[in-house]
């Protein structure tokens, strides 16, 4: 049993006696998502996996989109191979734009992701959108090749909303911008 299974099982036991299955899943999803505001947290990975586990029956529209490599609102979207945070497309922005009233961080961490549609690898920059409280929608964490924070630019343990004029350091959501074809 993984730690996530344990977490969900523990939560499920306490809720199962007093809720329907549908509201149980909703409550559990809300709890896990709510516990994960900062990008790049182990708990974020858990919440993301929980959404996958819950599968159909989840009242959250995200679940219906899981597994779509070409859907920017899906955690499985090909560009999200190293993302950790709330997907800006679910928060009023898109995979390459920030929601109204926020500001895109100038610096960030990058991943190299494979696009199955054209068979090419791309360098993807996960610029955070900053200056408002955490969005709380479409949490996604995929932690492959994550490095410790002494190697900052491949580390998802930083809040990259730092040093910018308006933001500094309130985190809202994350984008996944294509920078170039990887060489």
């Amino acid at each position, binding site marked *: 049993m993984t730690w996530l299974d344990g977490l969900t099982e523990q939560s499920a036991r306490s809720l199962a006696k007093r809720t329907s299955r549908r509201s149980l899943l909703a409550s559990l999803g809300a709890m896990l998502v709510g516990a994960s505001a900062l990008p790049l947290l182990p708990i974020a990975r858990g919440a993301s996996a929980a959404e996958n586990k819950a599968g159909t029956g989840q009242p959250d529209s995200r679940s219906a989109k899981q597994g779509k490599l070409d859907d920017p609102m899906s955690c499985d979207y090909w560009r999200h191979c190293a993302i950790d945070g709330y997907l800006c497309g679910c928060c009023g922005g898109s995979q390459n734009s920030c929601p109204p009233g926020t500001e895109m961080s100038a610096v960030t961490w990058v991943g190299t992701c494979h696009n199955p549609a054209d068979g090419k690898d791309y360098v993807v920059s996960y610029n955070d959108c900053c200056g408002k*409280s955490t969005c709380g929608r479409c949490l996604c964490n995929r932690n492959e*090749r994550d490095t410790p924070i002494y*190697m900052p630019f491949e580390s998802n343990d930083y809040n990259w909303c730092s040093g910018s004029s308006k933001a500094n350091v309130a985190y809202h959501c994350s984008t996944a911008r294509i920078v170039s074809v990887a060489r």
Partner: protein
Amino acid sequence: MNGSFKDGKLRPPRLADQNKMSVRTRIASALALTLALSTHAATLPSDPMSVVQSLPPGGSPHWVWVNDFVFPHMTEGKAMLVDGDSGRFLGELDTGFGFSRVVLSHDGKVILSPETYFSRGTRGVRTDVVTLYDAAHLTAIAEIIIPPKRSSNMPMMADAELTDDGRFLLIYNFTPAQSITVVDARSRALVGEIETAGCALVYPTGPRSFFSICGDGKLLDVRLSSTGHAASSRRTGRIFDVATDPVTEKAVRVANTWYFVSFSGMIYPVTKGDAGLKLAPTWPLLTAAEKAQNWRPGGLQQLAAHAGLNRLYSIMHQGPIETHKDPGKEVWVYDLASHERVKKIAMKNDSGSIRVTQDAHPLLFSIFIGSNVLDVYDATSGDYLRSVDSIGTTPTLLVTAGPS
């Protein structure tokens, strides 16, 4: 209760049941009634107004500060004090946005807390401060304004540390330019900033020295002047293999050695001697067979140590390399002299953060960011003692007296 539920109605006890009551029971009932009447007659005294608890000076080595980032509401960081012996919640500090952890003064009288605030909640002017709290009353007694550069990252003990004599507080900055803010804890004043370009976090090595880890696997060895300014700063040769098996940032210290652990479970002891920083021989937490079974260290505060027992504690789980931050259901205990594993502790709940008190009868504390239940164990026997529920929202680091 005498009586029963049937068809949704409470029915009175039947006479036959009443007849079954013993004489002894009847006497007891009569006595209870008499007592109730006499109690009713007494008048309770008025309670005094404005009574506020304080904590005994010096506290207890079994007190633990549970630090909480409060991810869903990051402006509301806090640290909560719990007595490991009784399980009592003793009090809390409110510590602002993107909180990492409190730092305890060596005399136990003051709590130092690097904090960030905005003038309008999540916007407006950002102000970073070190707040000093009176440890007996948990009230703010002083505030030192520092450059608004404090790193916002997953909380780590090495975000802020005191020098070995407790004089200077060192705080890691990331804007993403990297530096260390130095605060004089004695005069309660900002000293200045030390550039650490390419190097992160703070690991004290003496009363006037610390190192940071650089992105190329070298260490930045910094010596401070008597006033807390950089007296010298030099890079070592390559210490860590960052390309193939990096160490995590979550090291623990025993005497003059910092113990780092790599993603694959190798221990890298970094010692400070007269000749500077040196890597002692590395050694594995895992046998080949355990490695083949994908056992791996993980967690947010994944290591703990006890200097007196000379033991190292490591949270363990099974999973591939990308699970290097995951919690575990076991803590493995090692003798630091022989490198032998001396115990496996089966944890009651998922463990992401552990801390061992440094006294002669040490406790092992355990918590996980995805839960808010603090578990307490006997650190020597590994026996589970108790759990304390509802400790914050997303608890991160456990802080007790003694080195990280």
